[in-house]
């Protein structure tokens, strides 16, 4: 029964939501809506588990006095501090939480994203060496798209952006669509295998 019950639940839930997609009946949609509501509540609880897990993992590490202990302490203090100010004074505009979010969190995340520009430039310098035909195609296409998608491309040649757009619309799109269709077929096949019980990794076994 430990195997059969979860498999039956999986099948019934999957079959119900596939049917919901094709049956636009109000009563049917109402039941689906109710189950979706339950799902949202269960997912929301995962956040509580997530916070508890972060606290547990980091407290364990601090107790073992690993080399990154100071960082773990900072993480836990920040976590607790943000939660406390958010719960006590709210998260709306003008609150301490909002001020910290805009002036600390936003700046730090933007900084992390901005670092990419430096690392991409460094990686491009080393990776785009024309060592083979494939590497040449990659490097040439990358340069054409890179220059064609900024205004300076049009300043160099007025049709540069159209040419770059053609690369995006024809060769790029053909490859992307092939990947998308392949992935979709794979998802359908995996979904069916889960529904009929051939794929059981979600039950914690092969």
């Amino acid at each position: 029964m430990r195997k059969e019950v979860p498999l039956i639940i999986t099948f019934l839930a999957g079959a119900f939501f596939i049917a919901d997609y094709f049956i636009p009946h109000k009563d049917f949609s109402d039941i689906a809506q109710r189950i979706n509501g339950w799902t949202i509540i269960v997912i929301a609880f995962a956040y509580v588990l997530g916070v508890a897990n972060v606290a547990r993992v980091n407290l364990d590490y601090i107790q073992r006095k690993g080399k990154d202990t100071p960082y773990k302490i900072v993480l836990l203090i920040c976590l607790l501090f943000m939660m406390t100010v958010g719960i006590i004074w709210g998260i709306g505009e003008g609150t301490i939480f909002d001020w910290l979010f805009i002036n600390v969190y936003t700046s730090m995340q933007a900084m992390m994203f901005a670092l990419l520009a430096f690392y991409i430039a460094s990686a491009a310098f080393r990776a785009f060496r024309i060592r083979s035909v494939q590497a040449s195609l990659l490097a040439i296409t990358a340069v054409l798209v890179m220059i064609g998608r900024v205004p300076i491309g049009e300043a160099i040649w007025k049709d540069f952006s159209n040419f770059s757009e053609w690369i995006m619309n024809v060769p790029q799109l053909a490859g992307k669509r092939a990947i998308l269709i392949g992935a979709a077929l794979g998802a359908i096949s995996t979904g069916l295998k889960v529904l009929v019980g051939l794929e059981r990794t979600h039950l914690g076994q092969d």
Partner: protein
Amino acid sequence: MRKFLEIINTLDRRWIFVFIGLAVSLPLFFPIGIKFSVSHPVQGFYHTIEKIPDGSKILMSCDFDPGSMPELYPMTITALEQMFRKDLKVIITCLWPAGPPLVERALAHVGAEYNKQKGIDYVHLGFKEGKEVVMVSMGASIPNTFPTDYHGTPVSEIPIMQGVTNYREVAMLVNISAGYPGTKEWVQQVQSRYQIDIVSGCTAVSAPEYYPYYQTGQLKGLLGGMKGAAEYEKLVGIMGLGTRGMDAQSVSHLMVFAFILIGNLAYFILKFMKRKESV
């Protein structure tokens, strides 16, 4: 000569960082103002909103966080400008937890400029966890999925939400997307099922993924990265953050191209020299 080429070939990446830093920052202080045209996907974005009758209700999902703010915040501001100019009523949701404060900031900025009132001209419903489940759930009932707005006001008390049950009561969906959940999921879960027009503004890195949806008409318009934001600003007629960032992006892309070119030249000349020496 050979020593110089070897230094170039194995250039310390800190030098690359210095040059990129200068290429990004100098044009921000000394703008060049390079002209650019507007691409078809951006025109599609603009005209789809423009065709909506004035005063209609529009759903806008801001699915991003501060990490992608430089690219996506400018297009959020411009989209709000275009919609408020047309007196469209905007219902905003977020599927990314760190998105709501950014939306509040954008609304405070653009809403005040056009004298728009919270609850009457726009509503911010805030963040709801659940990703695709939230999208599907909104198809059955938006008020049940978002019972209160971001500030805790019940949606039944918000004037703009009167008469809004699900996607049937909104004219279209504007999605600003940084990844998952985002445009791809909106197309798969909502556009194909509820036949609602969707336009998307996304990061440059994820734009190639959405081109197939634009070509099939599942997306009516697409803004890719800061360039897309700048082109959109040009159509709307504002000088925003996207346009101001174009010079920096142009010069930095040119700098990366120069590095690729110099790296390859050094590599090939060294290779030629070594071959000549061995012969």
